[in-house]
């Protein structure tokens, strides 16, 4: 029986997906963490989206049984150590992100991907603004406006990331069923 790979187009909203595998969630989170820790410099660093935030957001929406506020918070702690930032900075941002996802998840999937991306941008921007507020309140200097560049890049990546993370859940159709 010849198997076909699932198509790369986003899933039809009415399509029934297979359950998410916990190991896949864990793997993607680990890969996203790796992406965040890549030793980039200069322009690439300024533009690098927060892969971990995007992946967390995706799983908070798609698999709230496995990924929620608690997981997001602990991944945030890991990022705080990895980046050498103040303890709790990423943790706070990811906690808020996970809550936002919880709040959004019932409606965000009804939208086409590019409209989802707009909402994702809003969520990411709120988190970035929160971190900015906490740090500047704590005496850090105001960063340049490029501070918000990763928010935009992240939102632009959202459609691609959604399709990619959805692949293993798409039902694999045999040739016979078509």
């Amino acid at each position: 029986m010849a198997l076909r790979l699932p198509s790369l187009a986003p899933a039809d909203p009415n399509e029934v997906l297979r359950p998410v595998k916990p190991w896949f969630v864990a793997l993607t989170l680990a890969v996203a963490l790796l992406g965040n820790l890549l030793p980039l410099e200069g322009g690439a660093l300024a533009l690098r989206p927060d892969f971990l935030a995007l992946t967390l957001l995706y799983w908070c929406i798609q698999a709230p049984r496995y990924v929620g506020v608690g997981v997001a918070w602990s991944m945030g702690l890991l990022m705080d150590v990895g980046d050498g930032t103040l303890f709790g900075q990423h943790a706070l941002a990811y906690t808020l992100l996970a809550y936002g996802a919880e709040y959004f998840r019932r409606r965000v999937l009804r939208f086409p991907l590019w409209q989802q991306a707009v909402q994702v941008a809003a969520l990411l921007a709120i988190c970035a603004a929160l971190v900015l507020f906490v740090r500047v309140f704590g005496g850090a200097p105001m960063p340049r406006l490029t501070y918000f560049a990763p928010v935009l890049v992240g939102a632009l990546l959202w459609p691609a990331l959604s399709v990619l993370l959805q692949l293993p859940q798409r039902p694999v159709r045999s040739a016979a069923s078509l």
Partner: protein
Amino acid sequence: MASHLPVEPPAFFHRGPSPAARLVFFGLISIALLFLDARYKYLENVRQVVAVVLAPVQRAAALPGAAIAGVSDYFASKRALVAENEALRQRLADTGAKAQGALTAAQENERLRALLDIRSRSEAAAIAVAVLYTGRDAFQQKLVVDKGRDEGVVAGAAVVDADGIVGQVTRTYPQMSEVTLLTDKDHVIPVRFERNGVRAVMAGAGAGRAPELRFMPPSADVRVGDMLVTSGLDGTYPQGLAVARVATVERDTGQMFARITVTPVGGVDRSGELLVLGRAGELPPRPEEPAEAEPLRKIGRGKAARGG
């Protein structure tokens, strides 16, 4: 709706606290952590433990970059290598001649110091390190270098490149260390004008802004282009290392202090190979300050410069 088959049990089967409760719970913990970490340094142990968990991932993340660097090194053109070799030879010859003179001077200095019974400056060992990556926190100016506690790097040590001071080690892990750059807002370094010996305090101002000299009266003898070297006053930095040149001087007699910005001479934002200097010997403890001198403490605002 693109959902999964077994979604959730109905609302009356509650699983744990509600998302809002969790948000409040974890949010408050995060804010408490932020406060504890910013105000006090209680969390270094926790950080070290998490760092152990994270170390393999960090090492894996460094692999692609190292591979790319290796490949580009391999294909570097021969002409470029020859040119670089030439430049390095030239530099070696230059510094070699200077080092000869310095050696004699150092010996003479040591003899004179012994005669005068002055505490001799300790000759500290230096550790060569390479920059792993620049810090990713938009609010701080930091570097991460590839050697840590296991190789003898200690927090508080000065970090220099071939041209001058770059910063200071502020946190060590077993295999790597964090270096706070001169340009970081919380970094303060005691300096001295090479021309006239006037002491000053240089404070970083954050990304993209020139560091400045704090608390200099408008009448101070400062000229654009003056060289600043470390004064070695607090025992953190060895004496006489090049730090910065004066870039602008604004004197406004209406103001209490002149506004003096400087440009670091070390490759704060470009050097890839650095040297971690050993601590310059412990100084005798600071005498008790009288109570009315309290406001003056603000001068040493950066905890980093005190040698953490």
